[in-house]
């Protein structure tokens, strides 16, 4: 029972990261109907920069801030310079271009930093508190949870209660009509990418201390898990992304805990297959089984 409780909390903490990352994917999907396959690589790139700044200045938080701001910048630049020019006639175009970006980013990172694993320190202790003899969360877990909650709330408020959020939603739902109403749709698209990338970078900084270390491919599995989470929740649904993230986090935690860590990725693959075959629109989609 102790173990179950511990695994549950651990799963929720990991799940929070997947939720944030899945949110980033959903954000871009809703605005542009593109799945940003480069999201993981972009997050790793900003994490490298962040940790370099931390190492140079001695301040983790400065590096953290630089990573998130870097994400903002990288997202905006990616949209302006690359994704804007993707032909919309086939959904494959965006996918292939994003994959090209993955190659470029991982190649450049490898050239600058090398392919060895670098340490990615956590800002807080990762030792779990014990409550009543049961190991629960660590300070770091609480930090992760709290940060993701704040981000989710901020995004929700931004999108539903601010003029900018209204413009962004309108630009995603009806770009031509929005233009006629004076909305700078192109600018909103760039902003959407910037925000999504910043969220991805934040998620990256939160998850890397729990992985093997900093490496150009470090976020590949996180991307796959988060993609699964987004699909589970429904690519169109922000709430679904959060729920999906928690589900995937719990699944990974239980499987790792009871069956062994090396089997966990297979569990994610099975979950993805099951959801794509059974309910491809996701658990929270408005339409039922959409023709994917």
């Amino acid at each position, binding site marked *: 029972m102790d173990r179950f409780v511990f695994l549950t909390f651990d799963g929720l903490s990991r799940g929070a990261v997947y939720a944030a990352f899945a949110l980033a994917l959903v954000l871009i999907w809703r605005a542009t109907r593109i799945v940003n396959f480069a999201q993981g690589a972009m997050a790793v790139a900003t994490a490298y920069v962040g940790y370099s700044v931390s190492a140079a200045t001695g301040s983790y938080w400065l590096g953290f801030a630089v990573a998130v701001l870097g994400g903002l910048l990288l997202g905006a630049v990616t949209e302006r310079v690359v994704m804007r020019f993707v032909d919309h006639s086939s959904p494959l175009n965006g996918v292939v271009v994003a994959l090209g970006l993955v190659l470029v980013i991982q190649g450049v990172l490898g050239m600058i930093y090398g392919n060895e694993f670098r340490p990615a320190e956590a800002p807080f202790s990762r030792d779990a508190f014990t409550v009543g003899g049961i190991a629960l969360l660590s300070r770091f877990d609480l930090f992760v949870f709290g940060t993701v909650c704040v981000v989710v709330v901020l995004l929700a408020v931004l999108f539903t209660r601010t*003029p900018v959020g*209204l*413009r962004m*939603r*309108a630009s995603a*739902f*009806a770009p*031509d*009509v*929005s*233009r*006629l*109403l*004076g*909305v*700078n*749709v192109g600018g909103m698209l760039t902003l959407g990418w910037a925000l999504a990338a910043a969220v991805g970078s934040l998620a990256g900084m939160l998850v890397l201390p729990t992985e093997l270390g900093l490496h150009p491919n470090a976020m590949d599995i996180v991307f796959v898990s988060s993609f699964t989470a987004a699909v589970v929740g429904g690519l169109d649904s922000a709430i679904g992304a959060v729920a999906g993230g928690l589900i995937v986090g719990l699944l990974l935690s239980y499987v790792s805990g009871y069956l062994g860590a090396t089997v966990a990725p297979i569990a994610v693959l099975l979950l993805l297959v099951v959801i794509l075959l059974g309910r491809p629109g996701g658990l929270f989609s408005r339409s039922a089984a959409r023709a994917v």
Partner: protein
Amino acid sequence: MTALLAAEQLTVGYGAAPVLHDVDLTVAAGSITAVLGANGAGKTTLLRTLSGLLRPAAGRVVLDGQDLRGVKVEQMVRRGVAHVPEGRGVVTELTVDENLRLGGLWRRDRADARRALDEVYGLFEPLARRRRFPGHQLSGGERQMLALGRALIGRPRLLLLDEPSLGLAPRVTAQIMGLLRTLRDDTGLTVLLVEQNVRSALSVADTGIVMALGRVVANADAATLRDDEEMRHAYLGF
């Protein structure tokens, strides 16, 4: 009568069969002009070119003496042009209130934008009752009101309307036409109205333009088009 809007030798589309061919028209300020013609005549293309969604292959559009070449679509509302597109363009995922506010977001004068919002709610009472409803829950007539209201929030000088009566009951159509007449009389609004419902359109229009196969084939005042049997038979099919 001053021309608020003029199109000169407008050609849209490429190749042997352009969608619009050498279209000339002027719209007088403070008037209602009806654009009539069968399906495929190019009426919607004309409106989309006037509001900048389409770029002409040749010719130009002049608004209040200014050439609109190179002006981005987003800028048109700032120049006082509101375009209610074919199908109304109600953003169904947003609420009535959000749709209306969307129409006024570009305005710097926030106080006046709020006033305009209240005026629109006053004008369209059913919308006021359904502020929080998402767009997809509205009836056809309510959507038309919403689209119109959203266009009016920007206090436009020129209103481009694409088939407002589509799918609406005659009573509702008459209300809308009456509203257009009132707006023209009270505020001097200029309206360019594309319509399939010829009788309704001519009942409020000052001028009528008839299009066929991408060209303007008749341009006369509405009374003439209404009363001249020969013209009616030749161009309007009744």
